[in-house]
């Protein structure tokens, strides 16, 4: 099935300390984490950061296998960038024979680091969505962008657009799956033929998919207007975001680990 391979963006209910933490804490820490993956450079700090990530996955209660499956769709990109790096980095070649002449030790090192970096970033991003409902996630983003409203950034509208987009990813995937099955039942063939033929075979899927996406958008707009939605000005929320004990735990632990890693790296 189509849905099975796409794990990013999926929320997995649970009661770990990560689930309970405020979305703002998690968003900020995820961003810091991504910066961290680029600040660390030596073997040991990399190992420590990877170990930390795996421990966090364990704490979250999300099955490790499921988390790692999230890397699958992006495996191609990871391998592609790694290969490019192996061949294009200048330095000492590992051998004088072709093709090893073009492979350098520096290239291999860089490629490995890049692959690990990308993997860690994907895992941390998935963890954020695994442990945060889409609604809380966009609430958090809106709150974080709030200060920018003063300089005219439409924070609420951006958050609303994001939450609608997130909300409809599974719906559209399901819809695609349904239409593909319906067309397959009429003899459509998606798996054989050359690239052009395969691309063409998706027309019977894309046309109905677009039609239904527009219909859904239209219905959603009507439903929102019927409930007097007029944008962000003056809106109050039923669920107020609050920092709790869970946030303190998550925040302090992460900051200590990040600081230790930086010390290890640069001292």
């Amino acid at each position, binding site marked *: *099935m189509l*849905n*099975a391979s796409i*794990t990013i963006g999926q929320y*997995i209910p649970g009661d770990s300390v990560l689930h309970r933490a405020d979305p703002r804490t998690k968003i900020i820490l995820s961003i810091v984490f991504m910066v961290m993956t680029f600040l660390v450079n030596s073997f040991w700090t990399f190992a420590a950061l990877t170990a930390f990530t795996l421990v966090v996955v364990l704490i979250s209660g*999300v*099955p490790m*296998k*499921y988390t790692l*499956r999230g890397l699958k769709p992006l495996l191609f990109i990871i391998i592609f960038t790694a290969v490019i790096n192996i061949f294009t980095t200048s330095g000492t070649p590992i051998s004088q024979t072709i093709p090893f002449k073009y492979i350098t030790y520096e290239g291999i090192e860089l490629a490995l680091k890049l692959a690990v970096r990308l993997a860690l970033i994907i895992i941390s991003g998935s963890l954020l969505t695994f442990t945060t409902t889409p609604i809380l996630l966009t609430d958090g983003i809106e709150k974080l962008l709030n200060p920018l409203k003063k300089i005219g950034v439409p924070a609420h509208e951006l958050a609303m657009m994001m939450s609608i987009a997130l909300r409809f990813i599974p719906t559209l995937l399901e819809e695609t799956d*349904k*239409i593909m*099955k*319906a*067309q*397959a*039942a*009429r*003899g*459509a*063939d998606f798996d054989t033929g050359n690239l052009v033929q395969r691309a063409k075979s998706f*027309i*019977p899927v894309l*046309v*109905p998919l677009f*039609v*239904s996406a527009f219909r859904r958008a239209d219905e959603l707009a009507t439903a929102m207007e019927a409930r007097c939605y007029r944008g962000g000005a003056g809106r109050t929320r039923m669920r107020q975001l609050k920092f709790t004990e869970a946030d303190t735990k998550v925040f302090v632990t992460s900051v200590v680990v990040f600081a230790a890693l930086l010390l290890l790296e640069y001292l």
Partner: protein
Amino acid sequence: MPIVLENLTHIYMPGTPFEKAALKDINLKIEDGEFIGIIGHTGSGKSTLIQHFNGLLKPTSGRVLVNGQETSGKGLKELRRHVGIVFQYPEHQLFEETVYKDIAFGLQKDNLSEDEKRKKILEVISAVGLKEEVLEKSPFEISGGQKRRVAIAGVLVMNPGILVLDEPTAGLDPRGRDEIFGFVSKIHESMGITVILVSHSMEDIAKLVNRVIVMNKGAVEVDGTVTEVFADIPRLESIGLSAPQVAYLMKRLKQLRPEIDENVFTVAAARDELLKHLGKEVQKPC
């Protein structure tokens, strides 16, 4: 082309937190020319079941044999011509510029001459009760009921030996519903094809089919004739279903007059039964 299911089990997304067993150890045999109704609560596994008939879903364990051939092997395309499945809201799959082209989609790999194609399309379009004029229109400008029929015609054009319809009348008005069921039974009779109908309308099931399969929580709860299935109303209600409304009426009438036959599940049969009963009463001397 009989369909045989042997210990069919299907699990969605195995190995994830969303793992769900949709079908558990199903054994069924569907013979040629049967008219079968599948009923069951939402989420009872009806849709998962029918998608195994043409290999859209593969069994997690167990076997599905169509005409003696396993669906997980080769020849899927051939299989899908023999088992035509019309999904819920099939009009959402229309995509071509004209109705004609859309129906012809199922024939694209057939190497038919333009004349043969046209002949087949004219046949199915009249079988589903549409006029020839509709062929040159865009499938997006015709009415909802017409769209639905065009979509069904798009499956029928492949000449399937088995036709599976998943709630073909959902969202249609009573007239549209009667028209669809009208041509479905006609096709069943005249072309002798097996029809499998998934529906939530007990009235329609009772009126049309010979055999009813009741699904509950991924398993076959009851499998029998209309009378066998609908006679046990408490059992149906315990799994969130019901009998046709006229069955309830006949049960109440039987409490008043024990000689009435309560195993009547269509309005027409109930009328006959009551007339027979009234006729007898009139003949009795006062």
